[in-house]
Protein backbone atom coordinates (compact mmCIF):
# COMPACT_ATOMS: atom_id res chain seq x y z
CA UNK A 1 0.00 0.00 0.00
CA UNK A 2 1.16 3.53 -0.58
CA UNK A 3 0.85 6.46 1.78
CA UNK A 4 0.91 9.92 0.29
CA UNK A 5 2.40 13.02 1.83
CA UNK A 6 -1.14 14.46 2.03
CA UNK A 7 -2.23 11.49 4.13
CA UNK A 8 0.78 11.96 6.38
CA UNK A 9 -0.10 15.63 6.82
CA UNK A 10 -3.68 14.73 7.72
CA UNK A 11 -2.62 12.09 10.26
CA UNK A 12 -0.09 14.49 11.76
CA UNK A 13 -2.83 17.09 12.24
CA UNK A 14 -5.13 14.52 13.88
CA UNK A 15 -2.24 13.51 16.17
CA UNK A 16 -1.46 17.17 16.89
CA UNK A 17 2.07 16.91 15.55
CA UNK A 18 3.83 19.57 13.46
CA UNK A 19 6.15 17.81 11.02
CA UNK A 20 8.85 19.37 8.87
CA UNK A 21 8.72 18.64 5.13
CA UNK A 22 11.67 16.32 5.57
CA UNK A 23 9.99 14.41 8.42
CA UNK A 24 6.72 14.10 6.50
CA UNK A 25 8.48 12.53 3.52
CA UNK A 26 10.45 10.17 5.74
CA UNK A 27 7.32 9.12 7.62
CA UNK A 28 5.44 8.48 4.36
CA UNK A 29 8.06 5.92 3.33
CA UNK A 30 8.47 4.40 6.80
CA UNK A 31 4.74 4.08 7.43
CA UNK A 32 4.38 2.48 4.02
CA UNK A 33 7.01 -0.12 4.98
CA UNK A 34 5.36 -0.75 8.33
CA UNK A 35 1.93 -1.19 6.69
CA UNK A 36 3.45 -3.62 4.22
CA UNK A 37 4.50 -5.65 7.24
CA UNK A 38 0.93 -5.45 8.50
CA UNK A 39 -0.74 -6.64 5.24
CA UNK A 40 -0.36 -10.29 6.32
CA UNK A 41 -3.19 -9.54 8.77
CA UNK A 42 -5.63 -9.06 5.92
CA UNK A 43 -5.12 -12.68 4.85
CA UNK A 44 -6.09 -14.07 8.26
CA UNK A 45 -9.55 -15.63 8.38
CA UNK A 46 -11.27 -13.83 11.25
CA UNK A 47 -14.89 -14.13 10.09
CA UNK A 48 -16.07 -15.98 13.21
CA UNK A 49 -13.62 -14.45 15.68
CA UNK A 50 -14.62 -12.08 18.45
CA UNK A 51 -12.25 -9.13 18.93
CA UNK A 52 -10.05 -9.40 22.03
CA UNK A 53 -9.55 -6.19 23.96
CA UNK A 54 -8.10 -7.62 27.16
CA UNK A 55 -5.73 -10.57 27.41
CA UNK A 56 -7.74 -12.28 30.16
CA UNK A 57 -11.13 -11.13 28.83
CA UNK A 58 -11.71 -9.39 32.15
CA UNK A 59 -14.74 -7.18 32.68
CA UNK A 60 -14.46 -3.63 33.91
CA UNK A 61 -14.65 -3.63 37.71
CA UNK A 62 -17.25 -1.38 39.28
CA UNK A 63 -16.88 0.44 42.56
CA UNK A 64 -19.23 2.44 44.79
CA UNK A 65 -19.77 5.96 43.47
CA UNK A 66 -17.95 7.76 46.26
CA UNK A 67 -15.11 10.25 46.23
CA UNK A 68 -11.76 8.54 46.80
CA UNK A 69 -9.33 11.28 45.73
CA UNK A 70 -8.95 14.49 47.67
CA UNK A 71 -8.58 17.90 46.04
CA UNK A 72 -4.91 18.15 45.10
CA UNK A 73 -5.03 21.16 42.82
CA UNK A 74 -1.94 22.82 44.28
CA UNK A 75 0.12 19.64 44.10
CA UNK A 76 -0.93 18.97 40.51
CA UNK A 77 -0.48 22.56 39.38
CA UNK A 78 2.96 22.78 40.94
CA UNK A 79 4.24 20.77 37.96
CA UNK A 80 2.27 22.67 35.30
CA UNK A 81 4.19 24.89 32.88
CA UNK A 82 1.93 27.95 33.37
CA UNK A 83 -0.87 28.59 35.86
CA UNK A 84 -2.47 31.61 37.48
CA UNK A 85 -4.87 31.64 40.46
CA UNK A 86 -5.59 27.94 40.12
CA UNK A 87 -6.14 28.11 36.35
CA UNK A 88 -4.07 26.52 33.60
CA UNK A 89 -3.05 29.21 31.12
CA UNK A 90 -3.16 28.67 27.35
CA UNK A 91 -3.09 31.10 24.41
CA UNK A 92 -6.33 33.04 24.06
CA UNK A 93 -9.11 30.86 22.62
CA UNK A 94 -12.19 33.08 22.99
CA UNK A 95 -12.21 36.57 21.43
Amino acid at each position, binding site marked *: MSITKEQVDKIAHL*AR*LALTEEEAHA*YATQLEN*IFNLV*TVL*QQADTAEV*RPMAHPMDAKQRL*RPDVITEGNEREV*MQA*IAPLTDMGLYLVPQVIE
Partner: protein
Amino acid sequence: MMIHTLAEYQKQLLAKKISSLELTQFFLDKMAQHNALNSFITVCAETAKAQAIHADELRAQGKAGPLTGLPFAHKDIFCTRGIKTTCGSKMLDNFIAPYSATVTEKLDDAGMVLLGKTNMDEFAMGSSNENSFYGVVHNPWDTRCVPGGSSGGSAAAVASRIVPAASGTDTGGSIRQPAAFCGITGLKPTYGRISRYGMIAFASSLDQAGPMTQTAEDAALLLNAMAGFDVRDSTSLNVPVPDYTATLNDSLQGLRIGIVPSFFGDGLNSEIGAAIDNAKSVLEKLGAQCVEIELPHHELAIPTYYVVASAECSSNLARYDGVRYGYRAAQPVDLMDLYKRSRSEAFGQEVKRRIMMGTYVLSSGYYDAYYLKAQKARRLISEDFKAAFKNVDVILSPTTPDVAFKIAEKTHDPVKMYLSDIYTIAVNLAGLPAINIPCGFSGQLPIGMQLIGNHLTEARLLNIAHQFQQHSDHHQKVPMMESSS
Protein backbone atom coordinates in the same frame (compact mmCIF):
# COMPACT_ATOMS: atom_id res chain seq x y z
CA MET B 1 33.21 -6.53 48.91
CA MET B 2 32.35 -9.44 46.64
CA ILE B 3 29.57 -9.46 44.10
CA HIS B 4 26.52 -11.27 45.37
CA THR B 5 22.91 -11.91 44.54
CA LEU B 6 20.02 -10.29 46.40
CA ALA B 7 19.45 -13.58 48.24
CA GLU B 8 23.08 -13.64 49.40
CA TYR B 9 23.07 -10.00 50.51
CA GLN B 10 19.84 -10.78 52.34
CA LYS B 11 21.67 -13.45 54.39
CA GLN B 12 24.59 -11.09 55.10
CA LEU B 13 22.25 -8.35 56.30
CA LEU B 14 20.42 -10.86 58.46
CA ALA B 15 23.71 -12.09 59.99
CA LYS B 16 24.72 -8.41 60.47
CA LYS B 17 27.91 -9.00 58.46
CA ILE B 18 27.19 -5.82 56.52
CA SER B 19 24.89 -2.86 56.98
CA SER B 20 22.48 -1.54 54.39
CA LEU B 21 24.42 1.73 54.41
CA GLU B 22 27.68 -0.06 53.55
CA LEU B 23 25.93 -1.98 50.81
CA THR B 24 24.30 1.15 49.43
CA GLN B 25 27.58 3.09 49.42
CA PHE B 26 29.28 0.15 47.69
CA PHE B 27 26.78 0.24 44.83
CA LEU B 28 26.70 4.04 44.58
CA ASP B 29 30.49 3.90 44.12
CA LYS B 30 30.18 1.25 41.45
CA MET B 31 27.53 3.25 39.62
CA ALA B 32 29.84 6.27 39.58
CA GLN B 33 32.78 4.14 38.45
CA HIS B 34 30.87 2.79 35.47
CA ASN B 35 28.81 5.80 34.48
CA ALA B 36 30.14 5.50 30.91
CA LEU B 37 27.58 2.72 30.40
CA ASN B 38 24.95 5.48 30.69
CA SER B 39 22.58 3.07 32.38
CA PHE B 40 21.18 5.73 34.75
CA ILE B 41 19.13 8.84 34.10
CA THR B 42 18.97 9.83 37.77
CA VAL B 43 21.15 8.69 40.68
CA CYS B 44 19.44 9.00 44.08
CA ALA B 45 22.55 9.06 46.27
CA GLU B 46 21.23 11.16 49.16
CA THR B 47 17.76 9.62 49.44
CA ALA B 48 19.30 6.16 49.05
CA LYS B 49 21.64 6.73 51.99
CA ALA B 50 18.76 8.03 54.09
CA GLN B 51 16.69 4.96 53.19
CA ALA B 52 19.64 2.71 54.05
CA ILE B 53 20.12 4.35 57.45
CA HIS B 54 16.40 3.92 58.12
CA ALA B 55 16.61 0.26 57.06
CA ASP B 56 19.52 -0.33 59.43
CA GLU B 57 17.52 1.26 62.26
CA LEU B 58 14.54 -1.00 61.52
CA ARG B 59 16.84 -4.02 61.59
CA ALA B 60 18.33 -2.94 64.91
CA GLN B 61 14.79 -2.71 66.29
CA GLY B 62 14.00 -6.19 64.99
CA LYS B 63 11.49 -4.79 62.49
CA ALA B 64 13.22 -5.81 59.26
CA GLY B 65 11.35 -7.72 56.57
CA PRO B 66 12.91 -10.03 53.96
CA LEU B 67 13.87 -7.18 51.59
CA THR B 68 14.69 -4.47 54.14
CA GLY B 69 17.93 -2.69 53.31
CA LEU B 70 18.50 -4.34 49.92
CA PRO B 71 19.41 -1.80 47.22
CA PHE B 72 17.93 -1.84 43.70
CA ALA B 73 17.13 0.45 40.78
CA HIS B 74 13.84 1.38 39.09
CA LYS B 75 13.33 1.77 35.40
CA ASP B 76 12.56 5.47 34.92
CA ILE B 77 8.99 4.63 33.91
CA PHE B 78 7.79 4.17 37.52
CA CYS B 79 6.61 7.35 39.18
CA THR B 80 8.66 8.14 42.28
CA ARG B 81 7.20 10.96 44.37
CA GLY B 82 9.61 13.88 44.64
CA ILE B 83 12.14 12.27 42.27
CA LYS B 84 12.38 13.07 38.56
CA THR B 85 10.53 10.53 36.39
CA THR B 86 11.36 11.06 32.70
CA CYS B 87 10.31 7.89 30.87
CA GLY B 88 13.39 8.54 28.72
CA SER B 89 11.69 11.55 27.10
CA LYS B 90 12.40 15.25 26.70
CA MET B 91 8.64 15.59 27.28
CA LEU B 92 9.13 14.64 30.95
CA ASP B 93 12.65 15.98 31.46
CA ASN B 94 11.28 18.36 34.12
CA PHE B 95 8.64 16.02 35.54
CA ILE B 96 8.79 15.49 39.30
CA ALA B 97 6.13 12.88 39.95
CA PRO B 98 3.49 14.16 42.41
CA TYR B 99 2.73 10.59 43.51
CA SER B 100 4.39 7.17 43.53
CA ALA B 101 3.55 4.12 41.48
CA THR B 102 2.09 1.19 43.42
CA VAL B 103 5.25 -0.80 42.62
CA THR B 104 7.36 2.06 43.99
CA GLU B 105 5.29 2.13 47.18
CA LYS B 106 5.41 -1.63 47.60
CA LEU B 107 9.21 -1.87 47.32
CA ASP B 108 9.53 1.22 49.48
CA ASP B 109 7.28 -0.33 52.12
CA ALA B 110 9.34 -3.52 51.91
CA GLY B 111 12.32 -1.40 52.99
CA MET B 112 14.28 -1.54 49.75
CA VAL B 113 16.77 1.20 48.95
CA LEU B 114 16.29 3.02 45.63
CA LEU B 115 19.74 3.65 44.09
CA GLY B 116 18.50 5.43 41.00
CA LYS B 117 16.30 5.48 37.91
CA THR B 118 17.54 3.59 34.87
CA ASN B 119 17.79 4.68 31.26
CA MET B 120 15.23 3.38 28.75
CA ASP B 121 13.84 3.86 25.27
CA GLU B 122 11.56 6.88 25.19
CA PHE B 123 8.13 5.87 26.56
CA ALA B 124 9.37 2.26 26.41
CA MET B 125 9.20 2.24 22.61
CA GLY B 126 12.24 0.51 21.25
CA SER B 127 14.35 -2.62 21.23
CA SER B 128 17.81 -1.11 21.58
CA ASN B 129 17.69 1.79 24.06
CA GLU B 130 18.78 4.04 21.19
CA ASN B 131 15.52 6.01 21.42
CA SER B 132 16.32 7.57 24.80
CA PHE B 133 16.50 11.37 25.08
CA TYR B 134 19.38 10.69 27.49
CA GLY B 135 21.50 8.81 24.98
CA VAL B 136 22.26 5.21 24.19
CA VAL B 137 23.14 2.69 26.90
CA HIS B 138 26.16 0.46 26.25
CA ASN B 139 26.09 -3.29 26.58
CA PRO B 140 28.62 -4.16 29.31
CA TRP B 141 29.72 -7.30 27.42
CA ASP B 142 30.73 -5.23 24.39
CA THR B 143 30.27 -1.50 24.70
CA ARG B 144 29.94 -1.16 20.91
CA CYS B 145 26.67 -3.09 21.16
CA VAL B 146 23.19 -2.13 22.34
CA PRO B 147 21.88 -3.56 25.63
CA GLY B 148 18.46 -4.18 24.07
CA GLY B 149 15.34 -2.30 25.03
CA SER B 150 13.28 -0.81 26.23
CA SER B 151 14.53 -1.70 29.75
CA GLY B 152 18.14 -1.40 28.51
CA GLY B 153 19.45 0.63 31.45
CA SER B 154 18.13 -1.86 34.00
CA ALA B 155 19.57 -4.80 32.03
CA ALA B 156 23.01 -3.21 31.60
CA ALA B 157 23.14 -2.16 35.27
CA VAL B 158 22.26 -5.63 36.58
CA ALA B 159 24.56 -7.39 34.08
CA SER B 160 27.51 -5.23 35.10
CA ARG B 161 26.57 -5.78 38.77
CA ILE B 162 26.57 -2.04 39.46
CA VAL B 163 23.15 -2.74 41.02
CA PRO B 164 22.09 -6.10 42.46
CA ALA B 165 18.63 -6.01 40.82
CA ALA B 166 16.26 -3.69 38.98
CA SER B 167 12.69 -3.31 37.82
CA GLY B 168 11.63 -3.30 34.20
CA THR B 169 8.49 -3.20 32.10
CA ASP B 170 7.55 -5.35 29.13
CA THR B 171 5.04 -4.41 26.43
CA GLY B 172 6.42 -6.54 23.59
CA GLY B 173 9.61 -7.97 25.07
CA SER B 174 11.12 -4.98 26.88
CA ILE B 175 12.20 -7.03 29.92
CA ARG B 176 13.10 -10.31 28.22
CA GLN B 177 14.96 -9.01 25.15
CA PRO B 178 17.41 -6.75 27.05
CA ALA B 179 17.78 -9.50 29.68
CA ALA B 180 18.82 -11.85 26.86
CA PHE B 181 21.21 -9.32 25.29
CA CYS B 182 22.85 -8.63 28.67
CA GLY B 183 22.85 -12.16 30.10
CA ILE B 184 20.50 -11.73 33.06
CA THR B 185 17.22 -13.18 34.32
CA GLY B 186 14.11 -11.18 33.41
CA LEU B 187 10.51 -12.08 34.20
CA LYS B 188 7.44 -10.65 32.50
CA PRO B 189 4.54 -11.77 34.70
CA THR B 190 0.93 -12.44 33.66
CA TYR B 191 -0.90 -9.31 32.53
CA GLY B 192 -2.48 -7.81 35.65
CA ARG B 193 -0.24 -9.63 38.17
CA ILE B 194 1.63 -6.40 39.07
CA SER B 195 -0.18 -3.08 39.31
CA ARG B 196 0.20 -0.61 36.44
CA TYR B 197 -0.80 2.33 38.66
CA GLY B 198 1.83 5.04 38.33
CA MET B 199 3.71 3.16 35.64
CA ILE B 200 3.74 5.55 32.70
CA ALA B 201 1.45 4.06 30.05
CA PHE B 202 2.54 2.96 26.59
CA ALA B 203 0.05 0.26 25.48
CA SER B 204 -2.26 -0.38 28.39
CA SER B 205 -3.55 -3.82 27.36
CA LEU B 206 0.03 -5.11 27.01
CA ASP B 207 2.17 -3.25 29.60
CA GLN B 208 3.40 -5.30 32.54
CA ALA B 209 6.13 -4.68 35.12
CA GLY B 210 8.57 -7.31 36.31
CA PRO B 211 11.90 -8.02 38.02
CA MET B 212 15.32 -8.02 36.27
CA THR B 213 17.85 -9.92 38.34
CA GLN B 214 20.97 -12.09 38.40
CA THR B 215 19.03 -15.25 39.26
CA ALA B 216 15.55 -16.76 39.25
CA GLU B 217 15.73 -16.89 43.03
CA ASP B 218 16.17 -13.10 43.17
CA ALA B 219 13.31 -12.65 40.70
CA ALA B 220 11.10 -14.69 43.05
CA LEU B 221 12.11 -12.51 46.01
CA LEU B 222 11.24 -9.31 44.12
CA LEU B 223 8.04 -10.67 42.60
CA ASN B 224 6.83 -11.54 46.10
CA ALA B 225 6.93 -7.84 46.91
CA MET B 226 5.82 -6.44 43.53
CA ALA B 227 2.78 -8.63 42.80
CA GLY B 228 -0.75 -8.25 44.07
CA PHE B 229 -4.18 -6.77 43.54
CA ASP B 230 -4.46 -3.00 43.35
CA VAL B 231 -7.82 -1.25 43.39
CA ARG B 232 -6.19 1.72 41.60
CA ASP B 233 -5.42 -0.36 38.49
CA SER B 234 -8.65 -1.26 36.69
CA THR B 235 -7.11 -4.35 35.07
CA SER B 236 -5.30 -5.64 38.15
CA LEU B 237 -5.99 -9.32 38.88
CA ASN B 238 -7.64 -10.03 42.21
CA VAL B 239 -5.85 -13.32 42.78
CA PRO B 240 -3.79 -14.30 45.87
CA VAL B 241 0.00 -14.02 45.58
CA PRO B 242 1.84 -17.24 46.45
CA ASP B 243 5.31 -17.23 48.03
CA TYR B 244 7.34 -17.56 44.83
CA THR B 245 10.45 -18.65 46.74
CA ALA B 246 8.65 -21.62 48.32
CA THR B 247 8.48 -23.72 45.14
CA LEU B 248 11.90 -22.96 43.64
CA ASN B 249 13.22 -26.40 44.57
CA ASP B 250 10.25 -28.41 43.31
CA SER B 251 11.16 -31.36 41.10
CA LEU B 252 10.96 -31.08 37.32
CA GLN B 253 10.07 -34.77 37.03
CA GLY B 254 7.29 -35.17 34.50
CA LEU B 255 7.46 -31.54 33.29
CA ARG B 256 6.24 -31.28 29.70
CA ILE B 257 8.08 -28.68 27.63
CA GLY B 258 6.64 -27.59 24.28
CA ILE B 259 9.02 -26.83 21.43
CA VAL B 260 7.84 -25.03 18.29
CA PRO B 261 10.04 -26.42 15.47
CA SER B 262 9.45 -23.42 13.17
CA PHE B 263 11.08 -21.15 15.79
CA PHE B 264 14.40 -22.86 15.09
CA GLY B 265 14.57 -22.21 11.33
CA ASP B 266 16.69 -20.01 9.12
CA GLY B 267 15.92 -16.77 10.93
CA LEU B 268 17.69 -17.94 14.09
CA ASN B 269 21.43 -17.55 14.83
CA SER B 270 22.60 -21.18 14.82
CA GLU B 271 24.63 -20.68 18.02
CA ILE B 272 21.41 -19.70 19.81
CA GLY B 273 19.76 -22.88 18.50
CA ALA B 274 22.71 -24.95 19.76
CA ALA B 275 22.67 -23.27 23.19
CA ILE B 276 18.97 -24.03 23.56
CA ASP B 277 19.60 -27.67 22.53
CA ASN B 278 22.10 -27.87 25.38
CA ALA B 279 19.62 -26.33 27.78
CA LYS B 280 17.00 -28.85 26.67
CA SER B 281 19.26 -31.73 27.58
CA VAL B 282 19.95 -30.19 31.00
CA LEU B 283 16.20 -29.94 31.61
CA GLU B 284 15.64 -33.48 30.30
CA LYS B 285 18.23 -34.80 32.74
CA LEU B 286 16.18 -33.15 35.49
CA GLY B 287 13.12 -35.13 34.44
CA ALA B 288 11.49 -32.91 31.81
CA GLN B 289 10.18 -34.19 28.54
CA CYS B 290 10.21 -32.15 25.29
CA VAL B 291 7.19 -32.29 22.99
CA GLU B 292 6.77 -30.68 19.57
CA ILE B 293 3.88 -28.23 19.32
CA GLU B 294 2.58 -25.71 16.77
CA LEU B 295 1.44 -22.11 17.13
CA PRO B 296 -0.24 -21.80 13.71
CA HIS B 297 -1.01 -18.06 13.86
CA HIS B 298 2.36 -16.96 15.13
CA GLU B 299 3.17 -15.09 11.91
CA LEU B 300 0.33 -12.70 12.79
CA ALA B 301 1.99 -11.65 16.05
CA ILE B 302 4.25 -8.83 14.83
CA PRO B 303 1.65 -7.14 12.58
CA THR B 304 -1.04 -7.51 15.27
CA TYR B 305 1.25 -6.07 17.89
CA TYR B 306 2.26 -3.03 15.86
CA VAL B 307 -1.39 -2.19 15.18
CA VAL B 308 -2.62 -2.74 18.75
CA ALA B 309 0.38 -1.19 20.53
CA SER B 310 0.51 1.84 18.23
CA ALA B 311 -3.22 2.46 18.57
CA GLU B 312 -3.02 2.34 22.36
CA CYS B 313 0.14 4.46 22.36
CA SER B 314 -1.46 7.18 20.26
CA SER B 315 -4.38 7.50 22.66
CA ASN B 316 -2.25 7.22 25.82
CA LEU B 317 0.20 9.85 24.61
CA ALA B 318 -2.59 12.27 23.69
CA ARG B 319 -2.36 13.45 27.30
CA TYR B 320 0.91 15.30 26.64
CA ASP B 321 -0.50 18.66 25.63
CA GLY B 322 1.96 21.24 26.94
CA VAL B 323 -0.71 22.47 29.36
CA ARG B 324 -0.88 20.35 32.49
CA TYR B 325 2.65 19.02 32.93
CA GLY B 326 5.72 18.22 30.89
CA TYR B 327 7.31 20.18 28.05
CA ARG B 328 5.68 23.33 26.69
CA ALA B 329 6.83 25.06 23.49
CA ALA B 330 7.91 28.69 23.82
CA GLN B 331 5.70 31.55 22.57
CA PRO B 332 2.79 29.63 21.05
CA VAL B 333 0.69 31.75 18.66
CA ASP B 334 -2.52 29.86 19.40
CA LEU B 335 -3.77 26.73 21.15
CA MET B 336 -3.22 24.44 18.14
CA ASP B 337 0.33 25.73 17.80
CA LEU B 338 0.90 25.07 21.52
CA TYR B 339 -0.27 21.46 21.18
CA LYS B 340 1.55 20.74 17.96
CA ARG B 341 4.87 22.33 18.74
CA SER B 342 5.01 21.09 22.36
CA ARG B 343 4.49 17.52 21.14
CA SER B 344 6.74 17.76 18.08
CA GLU B 345 9.62 19.41 19.90
CA ALA B 346 9.54 17.00 22.85
CA PHE B 347 8.76 13.59 21.33
CA GLY B 348 11.53 11.67 19.58
CA GLN B 349 11.31 10.11 16.12
CA GLU B 350 10.19 6.63 17.14
CA VAL B 351 7.48 7.92 19.46
CA LYS B 352 6.14 10.21 16.72
CA ARG B 353 6.22 7.34 14.23
CA ARG B 354 4.14 5.15 16.54
CA ILE B 355 1.70 7.95 17.33
CA MET B 356 1.27 8.50 13.58
CA MET B 357 0.74 4.82 12.95
CA GLY B 358 -1.74 4.51 15.82
CA THR B 359 -3.66 7.60 14.76
CA TYR B 360 -3.92 6.20 11.25
CA VAL B 361 -5.26 2.76 12.28
CA LEU B 362 -7.84 4.38 14.56
CA SER B 363 -8.90 7.04 12.06
CA SER B 364 -12.28 7.06 10.41
CA GLY B 365 -12.50 4.54 7.57
CA TYR B 366 -9.52 2.44 8.71
CA TYR B 367 -10.62 1.26 12.14
CA ASP B 368 -12.25 -1.98 10.95
CA ALA B 369 -9.51 -2.87 8.49
CA TYR B 370 -6.71 -2.47 11.00
CA TYR B 371 -7.59 -2.12 14.65
CA LEU B 372 -10.62 -4.42 14.75
CA LYS B 373 -8.88 -6.91 12.48
CA ALA B 374 -5.84 -6.91 14.79
CA GLN B 375 -8.00 -7.47 17.85
CA LYS B 376 -9.49 -10.52 16.16
CA ALA B 377 -6.05 -11.78 15.16
CA ARG B 378 -5.04 -11.26 18.75
CA ARG B 379 -7.65 -13.80 19.82
CA LEU B 380 -6.37 -16.32 17.25
CA ILE B 381 -2.86 -15.93 18.67
CA SER B 382 -4.14 -16.32 22.21
CA GLU B 383 -6.22 -19.42 21.30
CA ASP B 384 -3.08 -21.05 19.85
CA PHE B 385 -1.44 -20.82 23.27
CA LYS B 386 -4.57 -22.09 25.00
CA ALA B 387 -4.54 -25.17 22.78
CA ALA B 388 -0.81 -25.69 23.32
CA PHE B 389 -1.12 -25.54 27.12
CA LYS B 390 -3.56 -28.45 27.02
CA ASN B 391 -0.59 -30.64 26.10
CA VAL B 392 2.42 -28.97 27.67
CA ASP B 393 3.24 -27.12 30.91
CA VAL B 394 5.60 -24.55 29.40
CA ILE B 395 6.99 -23.56 26.01
CA LEU B 396 10.74 -23.19 25.48
CA SER B 397 11.88 -20.81 22.74
CA PRO B 398 14.69 -18.44 21.86
CA THR B 399 14.21 -14.98 23.36
CA THR B 400 15.79 -13.22 20.39
CA PRO B 401 16.71 -14.30 16.84
CA ASP B 402 20.25 -13.00 17.31
CA VAL B 403 22.60 -11.72 20.00
CA ALA B 404 23.06 -8.00 20.76
CA PHE B 405 23.64 -5.94 17.63
CA LYS B 406 25.92 -2.98 17.10
CA ILE B 407 24.85 0.52 18.09
CA ALA B 408 23.33 2.35 15.04
CA GLU B 409 23.06 -0.90 13.04
CA LYS B 410 19.25 -0.85 12.80
CA THR B 411 18.25 2.72 13.62
CA HIS B 412 17.45 3.63 10.01
CA ASP B 413 15.13 0.70 9.41
CA PRO B 414 12.21 0.54 11.87
CA VAL B 415 10.82 -2.64 10.27
CA LYS B 416 14.11 -4.47 10.79
CA MET B 417 14.12 -3.33 14.40
CA TYR B 418 10.50 -4.52 14.89
CA LEU B 419 11.33 -7.98 13.50
CA SER B 420 13.87 -8.53 16.26
CA ASP B 421 10.92 -8.93 18.68
CA ILE B 422 9.57 -11.99 16.86
CA TYR B 423 9.77 -14.42 19.82
CA THR B 424 8.59 -12.13 22.60
CA ILE B 425 5.59 -10.24 21.21
CA ALA B 426 2.93 -12.97 21.09
CA VAL B 427 3.32 -13.49 24.85
CA ASN B 428 2.14 -9.93 25.55
CA LEU B 429 -0.79 -10.23 23.15
CA ALA B 430 -1.94 -13.34 25.04
CA GLY B 431 -1.14 -11.81 28.46
CA LEU B 432 1.06 -14.76 29.43
CA PRO B 433 4.02 -14.88 31.82
CA ALA B 434 7.48 -15.57 30.36
CA ILE B 435 11.02 -15.50 31.63
CA ASN B 436 14.42 -15.00 29.99
CA ILE B 437 17.25 -17.14 31.35
CA PRO B 438 20.90 -16.96 30.24
CA CYS B 439 21.84 -20.20 28.44
CA GLY B 440 25.16 -19.60 26.70
CA PHE B 441 27.40 -17.25 24.77
CA SER B 442 28.13 -16.45 21.14
CA GLY B 443 31.66 -15.12 21.29
CA GLN B 444 31.57 -12.73 24.22
CA LEU B 445 27.84 -11.93 23.87
CA PRO B 446 25.21 -13.67 26.01
CA ILE B 447 22.44 -15.90 24.66
CA GLY B 448 19.05 -16.08 26.34
CA MET B 449 16.22 -18.58 26.20
CA GLN B 450 12.58 -17.95 26.96
CA LEU B 451 10.18 -20.08 28.97
CA ILE B 452 6.51 -19.23 28.43
CA GLY B 453 3.86 -20.42 30.86
CA ASN B 454 0.08 -20.37 31.05
CA HIS B 455 -1.63 -17.51 32.92
CA LEU B 456 -0.48 -17.13 36.55
CA THR B 457 2.19 -19.86 36.40
CA GLU B 458 5.03 -17.55 37.45
CA ALA B 459 5.91 -19.89 40.33
CA ARG B 460 6.45 -22.79 37.93
CA LEU B 461 8.54 -20.67 35.52
CA LEU B 462 10.74 -19.49 38.39
CA ASN B 463 11.01 -23.06 39.66
CA ILE B 464 12.21 -24.33 36.26
CA ALA B 465 14.57 -21.37 35.81
CA HIS B 466 15.99 -21.90 39.31
CA GLN B 467 16.55 -25.61 38.73
CA PHE B 468 18.25 -24.85 35.43
CA GLN B 469 20.49 -22.30 37.17
CA GLN B 470 21.40 -24.87 39.82
CA HIS B 471 22.74 -27.00 36.96
CA SER B 472 24.38 -24.33 34.76
CA ASP B 473 26.68 -21.36 35.29
CA HIS B 474 25.82 -18.96 32.43
CA HIS B 475 24.01 -16.64 34.83
CA GLN B 476 27.12 -16.35 37.02
CA LYS B 477 29.32 -14.95 34.26
CA VAL B 478 30.13 -11.27 34.67
CA PRO B 479 31.49 -8.95 31.95
CA MET B 480 35.03 -7.60 32.27
CA MET B 481 34.72 -3.84 32.40
CA GLU B 482 37.09 -0.93 32.57
CA SER B 483 35.94 1.68 35.00
CA SER B 484 35.34 5.09 33.53
CA SER B 485 36.86 7.13 36.35
